[in-house]
């Protein structure tokens, strides 16, 4: 039987803005046999913004987190697609490129750490679909969603860069299968592979809004009843983003956005608390009223 114990990498955004995501993960995963151990002393994954400032710093900071997990003897599970990209990319590159590994280890020697290449980096979807298994997830559902039409937003880094994910044979299918396991229907839509626009925040907010607007238009055209996300940036862009789009474009989408793990939690018969319901800027009470 697969050992389902992971070094839990939380990242920066979830503890700052989305406690409800963390709470749902910590309620759902033990019910599926998954044990999560906090990574003490970890630092920011050094996402694309830090990569833009200094490449060597990105490599060393991402690798430091990998070393912490190696010292714990556990594979990493992340929730955020940005964290996943940074840590997965660095883990893959350092395992494959001895020269790069030596360069990074030379920097890490300043703090007495050394990357050895002993662990894997996984996303929530990897763990649920690959390690727990879609069947087990399905069997855990006590209150199926009976055909609820859901637009699944996988986010960029679940499947990109292609050169990394092709080898790992990952694609959209895992998240779709998980959504279907809850009894909901994962609806195909145009621009599913498109970014939510989140990385443009603080660089060009207007463009960030335009990108998320394109996604929301596509989702509306596909007639989904709700959107489900696995990345906290995607969640913010598509949830809070609808209020911004209302202000700037005078358009209403009224599409509830829910973290996939919240969907799972409700399907498993657990109710969300009042403060968690209020954490959604587009109200979810109408669509999920019997489960809150």
């Amino acid at each position, binding site marked *: 039987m697969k050992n389902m114990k992971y070094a839990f990498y939380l990242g920066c955004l979830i503890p700052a803005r989305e*406690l409800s995501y963390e709470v749902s993960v910590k309620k759902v995963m033990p019910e599926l046999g998954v044990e999560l151990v906090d990574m*003490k*002393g*970890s630092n920011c994954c050094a996402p694309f913004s830090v990569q833009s*400032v*200094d490449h060597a710093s990105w490599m060393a*900071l991402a690798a430091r987190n990998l070393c912490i997990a190696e010292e714990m003897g556990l594979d990493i599970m992340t929730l955020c697609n940005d964290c996943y990209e940074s840590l997965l990319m660095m883990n893959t590159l350092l395992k494959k490129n001895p020269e790069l590994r030596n360069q990074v280890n030379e920097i890490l020697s300043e703090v007495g750490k050394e990357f050895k290449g002993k662990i894997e980096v996984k996303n929530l979807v990897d763990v649920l679909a690959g390690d727990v298994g879609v069947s087990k997830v399905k069997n855990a559902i006590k209150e199926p969603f009976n055909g609820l039409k859901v637009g699944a937003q996988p986010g960029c880094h679940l499947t990109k860069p292609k050169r990394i994910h092709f080898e790992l044979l990952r694609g959209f299918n895992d998240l779709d299968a998980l959504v279907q396991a809850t009894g909901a229907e994962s609806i195909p839509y145009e621009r599913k592979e498109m970014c939510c626009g989140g990385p443009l925040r603080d660089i060009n907010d207007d463009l960030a809004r335009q990108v998320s607007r394109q996604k929301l238009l596509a989702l509306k055209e596909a007639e989904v009843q709700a959107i489900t996300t696995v990345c906290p940036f995607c969640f913010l862009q598509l949830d809070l983003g609808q209020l911004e789009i209302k202000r700037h474009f005078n358009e209403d989408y009224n599409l509830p956005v829910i973290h996939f793990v919240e969907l799972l939690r409700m399907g498993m018969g657990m109710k969300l608390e009042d403060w968690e319901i209020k954490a959604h800027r587009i109200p979810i009470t109408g669509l999920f009223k019997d489960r809150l």
Partner: protein
Amino acid sequence: MGEVMFALRNLAVRKGNAPAGVIAQAKSLYETTRVINPIRSTLDKRESLGLGKLDNEGLEEVQKILKKTGMDKLVQSK
């Protein structure tokens, strides 16, 4: 292509040409180990939910790394 874009951005930063938000995140990382930090009420909520404290035990190591790479100078000068 992605690597080329990052290399160009690194050069731009060294010339002092970077969005303020990006530099602010990098500076926060140097000062706290995180690019975004929770506000006080979020930390209190966290404690009330029994989620465990956020630590910055890694601060000294992060700063040593960023001094080694020179990123400390890039963000402290802004």
